[in-house]
């Protein structure tokens, strides 16, 4: 597996180039997917992070603008308004395909301390996802229960959209259930799945079409 003259196995080279940052987007996303699915590759990446990490000392500190922490906190810890849930829900989705929302079926039960559960569905969508939030372990689990896997080169990306806020990426949902630590799942928040490029939207904001969604709330 050694490329002529490189003296570096192809996988090791990919790990090194990923950490170095030189790869084009498609290869970067493929490497990121590999980190999640292949522990040996993840270890190679980690070893390269350790090797190149001392270069971090050369990054110069620059004070961010004073309001940035407020913006981050407003996004992470919104005050979810109870009564105006559907108004804020529409506002929250902003750039996503709002037309699809009218037909969204919401099925939510909220009992403490039982887990919060929701079914993510969409108009004319064969795809369905089941979400369950363990309020004690602070863990959100989402799995595909109906419909096909994402087409080759694509991923289903899960977003949480606190009422009135921009979507926050949670991760991509593949064949296995996605389980992820989440500090809270506020009432009025929306869980949504969009179709994104492999590894998820590189910008941190949804770019692909909205497929299925559900609003968290007491039914």
């Amino acid at each position: 597996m050694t490329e002529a003259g490189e003296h570096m196995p192809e996988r090791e080279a990919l790990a090194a180039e990923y950490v170095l940052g030189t790869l084009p987007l498609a290869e970067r996303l493929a490497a990121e997917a590999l980190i999640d699915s292949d522990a040996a590759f993840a270890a190679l990446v980690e070893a390269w992070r350790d090797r190149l990490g001392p270069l971090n000392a050369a990054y110069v500190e620059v004070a961010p603008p004073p309001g940035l922490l407020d913006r981050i906190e407003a996004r992470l810890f919104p005050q979810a308004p109870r009564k105006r849930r559907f108004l804020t829900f529409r506002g929250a989705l902003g750039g996503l395909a709002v037309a699809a929302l009218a037909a969204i079926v919401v099925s939510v039960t909220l009992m403490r301390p039982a887990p919060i559960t929701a079914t993510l569905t969409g108009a004319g969508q064969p795809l369905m996802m089941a979400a369950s939030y363990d309020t004690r372990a602070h863990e959100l689990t989402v799995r595909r229960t109906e419909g096909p896997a994402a087409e080759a080169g694509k991923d289903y990306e899960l977003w949480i959209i606190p009422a009135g806020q921009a979507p926050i990426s949670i991760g991509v949902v593949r064949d296995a259930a996605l389980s992820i630590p989440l500090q809270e799942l506020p009432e009025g928040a929306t869980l949504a799945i969009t179709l994104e490029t492999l590894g998820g939207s590189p910008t941190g904001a949804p770019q692909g079409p909205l497929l299925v969604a559900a609003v968290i709330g007491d039914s």
Partner: protein
Amino acid sequence: MMPDDPIAGLIVATAGADRNEFRNLYRATSAKLFGVCLRILKDRSEAEDAVQEVFTRVWLNARRYDAARARGMTWLIAIARNHAIDRLRARPAAREGDDSAIAEIADRAPGPEAQVVARGEARRIADCFEGLEPARAEAIRGAYLGGLSYEELSRRHDVPMNTMRSWLRRGLMKLKECLEA
């Protein structure tokens, strides 16, 4: 590990959903992470968005942090670099290189940076960089710190992309050998 790594302690406290400790973590690390995003993105407003996204990911993923495997700041910078480089690579092709003149000056100036790198635990890698051909060392440093792509590096060094790629691979291999010697 945590007694001599207060940042790691703040990340672990953040994982426990402690908003005050999250604020302390932001205060202790946001200038460094903003510096990382700014260096890579070279656009203040986009760097602000990137830092916002980085701290959002830190809040949501703090439980994945393992203090036994990485120092706190190293873990945070990896998240910031990944996100900033993903953003950079996702930009439309036309925007790439529109600021290359400024970037070139910033990435080629060896002075203060080389001195900073020569400090503490960074000394070893600085010594190993010394063993590389200067142009290759500069390409590796520019790629890592500034997020330069193969296209940009090959343009700057005026060599074909494949040549640049094997330069970097050989340079990285040599670095690895040197660091493990």
